[in-house]
């Protein structure tokens, strides 16, 4: 487990978060303007490409690390996505939502390590 591995794991997680935010933006743009417009095309391709990067980074990491080591990091995406949605998309986080997300994260980590 080197610093480089940790960095790659973080980049992979960041790509998942960025990908979901971009997909969300893409779909939001269709509410008023439909699918045949530039904004949708840009965000949907950027989102899909970012998700693809995280997918292949993950496969590469799997060649080096055990699945049981790598997988628990996936649980962290819930926290990062909720935080990013609150900050960048101005979504409202209720205390209930925060506690629920933390429980899900803890649960996913437990399911993955066991």
């Amino acid at each position: 487990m080197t610093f480089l591995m940790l960095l790659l794991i973080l980049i992979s997680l960041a790509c998942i978060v960025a990908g979901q935010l971009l997909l969300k933006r893409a779909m939001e743009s269709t509410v008023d303007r439909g699918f045949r417009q530039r904004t949708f095309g840009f965000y949907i391709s950027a989102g899909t490409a970012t998700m693809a990067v995280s997918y292949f980074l993950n496969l590469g990491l799997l060649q080096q690390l055990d699945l049981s080591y790598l997988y628990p990091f996936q649980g962290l995406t819930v926290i990062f996505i909720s935080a990013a949605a609150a900050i960048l998309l101005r979504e409202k986080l209720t205390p209930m939502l925060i506690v629920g997300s933390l429980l899900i994260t803890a649960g996913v980590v437990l399911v993955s390590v066991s």
Partner: protein
Amino acid sequence: MSASQLTGLRNPWLQVAISTLSVAISELFQKRGAVATIHISEAWGWTGLTTLASPLVWLGMLFTIVSFITWLYAIKHLPLSVAFPASQAVHVLVPLSSWLILGERIVPLRWCGIALVLCGLALVARPVAELEEKL
């Protein structure tokens, strides 16, 4: 249009459920397909490409596509901070169906994790129920 006005198949919550269920189903098909194609080639097995010989893997891909499209529809109408945690139900569905359908074993610690995810899902679902009532 608010999420609660979309009924029937257009209900975004139903689409989150279909998306999550599709991920779980595709995992099961892919696992079955991957196991069924182990014998084909030892040299190429690591690429994952030999699994394409199994129709189950293709069926799995179909469900992956369904999950992606239904997910896009869902996040068009729902906040990401609610929809994404809800989609993590897949971490309950996959171990449970591996246990029931594939006959894999679940260790006690994993049962605890499943219980925690379920508690979290219940909490995440509650603000949603309140939100829908207000509308």
